[in-house]
């Protein structure tokens, strides 16, 4: 099978320019018409530690970070040590030598390209140019389009002065010359440029921020937390342009409280956090359920519990997102698959919150947070904004009046005769406290009942494949992208396999699950958490008995892992 994609992994010490090198390659490839999917890991420390940036690029759509890399570029000995077990025959290995801090053993079949990165940087009297030397070498060795790469470098460095730019370009060309002097012995090369597509290249976190702005938010309350903080950074830059406000709160409890207050006051409002923050917000989410106030919380999941693994990938907040509050506290939970979803499902989540007057939790995860991907550029005119139902000012206003769909119109403060209370106490139609058994039951039916149509409001699930299959794979979040590729490759092997990808996690679209399962002999549920959280919900809410497949090592699945498991359970 011809391999159409190429995976380049750059690794080294945090602060050495690993991340910017990856960003330059990704942007250059995108400008050369390629699809790009990047994956990064970096240390929890501020300075130093192991950092890694992987660029996967292809002319065809990409859904995940790939099984492993084709090309490793090691800036230091640690990068070599961490990755040496993946240096399989055929891999190209570019490394800092001589005068680097290590002398690697080159395994049989690995094609080695020693580049004196540190020495060249030292000769140029600037350690900072080391990554530019590496970039030049990579460009020359693997056909990373030089024209677009230089355009990217010019755009990046021009604001820092002509001297800075020419210095970086000089280092780039030195690296290129060093590589040109070596014998090219591998077959890896980026495809020749094609016309660039109408795309953005954007990280999951920035994409949530962009979705928020496109979705019409006017209030955002932030509290710093890895790996969600960049969402606030993006929103902070742009929200004043649309007359909105971002406040950094004193803690996550204040964030969700402020969002509730702003929403009551009539504005589209949201916050974003990670698991620990969502834990703190639990009580106020219940208040939002009870008072039927629209709020959006984006949870960029990380390794838990406790402080856990703040910079690592995990999908372990599903229990918390669905059930994290006291009492019976209905909400809507959605999960994004990729960076494109981060834009569009943030818009959708805001619409859902406004329409259904309840908390919406949108789950992203650590690997998407920092993964930059090429996504079609959104068109503002094509974005649908759904407003909350507002009282028309006629008759006597009762905030929680029963209605056929369970949705009662809201009244913005300032509306004459619309005065009402938003309350966390159980209440009757007018909002007055009412603890009678029939009332509590009726109000629960209202609050849960209004969510019955959510399944029609959004595209709740996607099915990949037709007819009967031996194995059906149910995946959520960024694991979907891994499964999409595994399914294609398994089919090429003649294995009958289908995929089922829920985006709406709660209320659970049970009918869709059952219909899918009816077409599969076995159901496999891979997810990145210890307990098999989606499997648990499937067993609780459907008649399906899934095979749970879990990993929780802080990194996403690879397609190969899924493929091996499918072959095993056939």
């Amino acid at each position, binding site marked *: 099978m011809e391999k159409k994609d190429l995976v380049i992994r750059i690794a080294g010490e945090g602060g050495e320019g690993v991340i910017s090198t990856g960003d330059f390659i990704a942007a250059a490839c995108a400008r050369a018409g390629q699809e790009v999917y990047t994956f990064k890991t970096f240390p929890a420390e501020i300075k130093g530690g192991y950092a890694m940036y992987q660029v996967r690029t292809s002319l065809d759509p990409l859904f995940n970070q790939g099984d492993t890399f084709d090309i490793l570029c090691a800036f230091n000995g640690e990068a070599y040590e961490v990755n040496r077990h993946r240096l399989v025959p055929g891999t190209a290995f570019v490394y800092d030598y001589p005068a680097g801090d290590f002398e690697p053993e080159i395994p049989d079949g690995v094609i080695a390209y020693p580049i004196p990165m540190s020495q060249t940087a030292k000769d140029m009297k600037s350690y900072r140019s080391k990554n530019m030397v590496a970039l030049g070498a990579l460009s020359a060795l693997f056909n990373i389009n030089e024209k677009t790469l230089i355009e990217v470098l010019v755009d990046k460095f021009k604001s820092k002065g002509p001297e800075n730019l020419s210095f970086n370009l000089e280092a780039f060309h030195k690296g290129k010359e060093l590589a040109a002097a070596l014998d090219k012995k591998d077959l890896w090369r980026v495809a020749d440029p094609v016309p660039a597509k109408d795309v*953005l290249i954007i990280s999951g976190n920035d994409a949530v921020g962009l979705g928020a702005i496109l979705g019409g938010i006017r*209030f955002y309350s932030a509290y710093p937390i890895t790996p969600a903080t960049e969402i606030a950074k993006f929103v902070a830059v742009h929200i004043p342009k649309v007359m909105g*406000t971002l406040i950094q*709160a004193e803690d996550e409890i*204040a964030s969700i409280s402020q969002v*509730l207050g702003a929403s009551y006051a*009539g504005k589209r409002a949201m916050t974003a956090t990670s698991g620990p923050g969502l834990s703190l917000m639990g009580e106020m989410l219940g208040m939002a359920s009870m008072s039927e106030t629209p709020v959006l919380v984006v949870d960029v999941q990380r390794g838990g519990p406790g402080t856990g693994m703040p910079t690592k990938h995990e999908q372990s907040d599903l229990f918390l997102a669905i059930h994290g509050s006291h009492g019976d506290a209905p909400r809507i939970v959605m999960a994004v698959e990729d960076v494109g979803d981060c834009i569009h499902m943030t818009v959708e989540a805001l619409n859902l919150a406004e329409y259904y007057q309840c908390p919406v939790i949108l789950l992203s995860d650590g690997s998407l947070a920092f993964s930059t991907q090429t996504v079609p550029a959104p068109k503002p005119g094509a974005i649908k904004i759904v407003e909350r139902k507002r009282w028309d000012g006629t008759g006597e206003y009762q905030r929680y009046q029963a209605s056929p769909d369970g949705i009662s119109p809201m009244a913005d403060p300032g509306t004459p005769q*619309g005065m009402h209370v938003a309350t966390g106490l159980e209440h009757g139609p007018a909002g007055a406290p009412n603890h009678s058994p029939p009332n509590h039951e009726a109000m629960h039916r209202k609050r849960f009942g209004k969510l019955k149509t959510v399944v029609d409001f959004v595209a709740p699930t996607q099915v990949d494949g037709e007819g009967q299959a031996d194995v059906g794979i149910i995946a959520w979040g960024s694991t979907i992208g891994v499964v999409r590729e595994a399914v294609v490759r398994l089919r090429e092997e003649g294995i009958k396999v289908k995929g089922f990808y829920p985006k709406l996690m709660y209320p659970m679209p049970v009918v869709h699950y059952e219909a899918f399962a009816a077409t599969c002999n076995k159901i496999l549920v891979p997810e990145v958490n210890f307990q098999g959280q989606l499997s648990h919900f499937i067993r609780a809410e459907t008649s399906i008995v899934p095979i749970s497949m879990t990993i929780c090592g802080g990194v996403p699945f690879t397609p190969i892992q899924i493929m091996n498991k499918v072959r095993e359970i056939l």
Partner: protein
Amino acid sequence: MSIATVKKAPLKPKDYKSDVSVVWCPGCGHYGILNAIYRALSEAGVDPSQLISISGIGCSSRSPYFINSYKMHTLHGRAGAVATGAQLARPDLAILVLGGDGDGFSIGGGHMPHMARKNVDMTYVLFDNGIYGLTKGQYSPTSRPEMKAYTTPYGGPEEPMNPLLYMLTYGATYVAQAFAGKPGVCAELIKGGLEHRGFSYINIYSQCPSFNKIDTIEFYRDLVEAVPKDHDVTDLGAAINLARQSSEGRAPMGLLYKADRPTLDQRMHAMVEGVNGSPDYDLNQIIDLNRP
């Protein structure tokens, strides 16, 4: 609060009463404070539909139900944070926060400094009865150590905090204190708070005859002492000196401090103007920044 909320034809105090009946114990100081709030709202000319009354949980946090306005009865300790969001979303409205000492300074203590230092434009009336009443009498952050209560059968092991000193230190721009037995003074100070553009904090001593047996109406009457006529309310040092009297067995009554400082919403508005913010901003400009 914002001037835009003032109505031309003022309403009477009774017009601010809702039709929900008040549920406090007989002899509770909160009745006096509530009546003072009605008077203050009337005298400040606040349009009920332009007012949001916000509370947390506790006896005094029931107050919004009794006021004719938009209102939020939220969670224990969170009134101030909810109010901050509402105020920033709608700086044209008046925001009144009502709550107790436990709600504000114990469970809600994490929010208090930030409303003060950020100068969020709202009026915070704290009903200070030195006790948790709704849960039947536990000591609070303002209880005196000699108080024997539900969880302090041998007397309290802690020193009380000083709300005025706290608010002055954290940068509140309107700090006052009164006593529920002096509803006229309360009304005057609350009205001043409503009219002040910035974070107004009014601490009002309120007797709890049911559970706080030592801070009686007589105790408070003897405790409070009018702020001296020659006190300069713009002098923070002088205000702090007055506030410190509370630890010496006397408590100032009146306006201690008032300062003009840009409010948080004014600063936010300046940011919007700084980037030429507009409801018709071309979103393509933001999208295009993310091209490769």
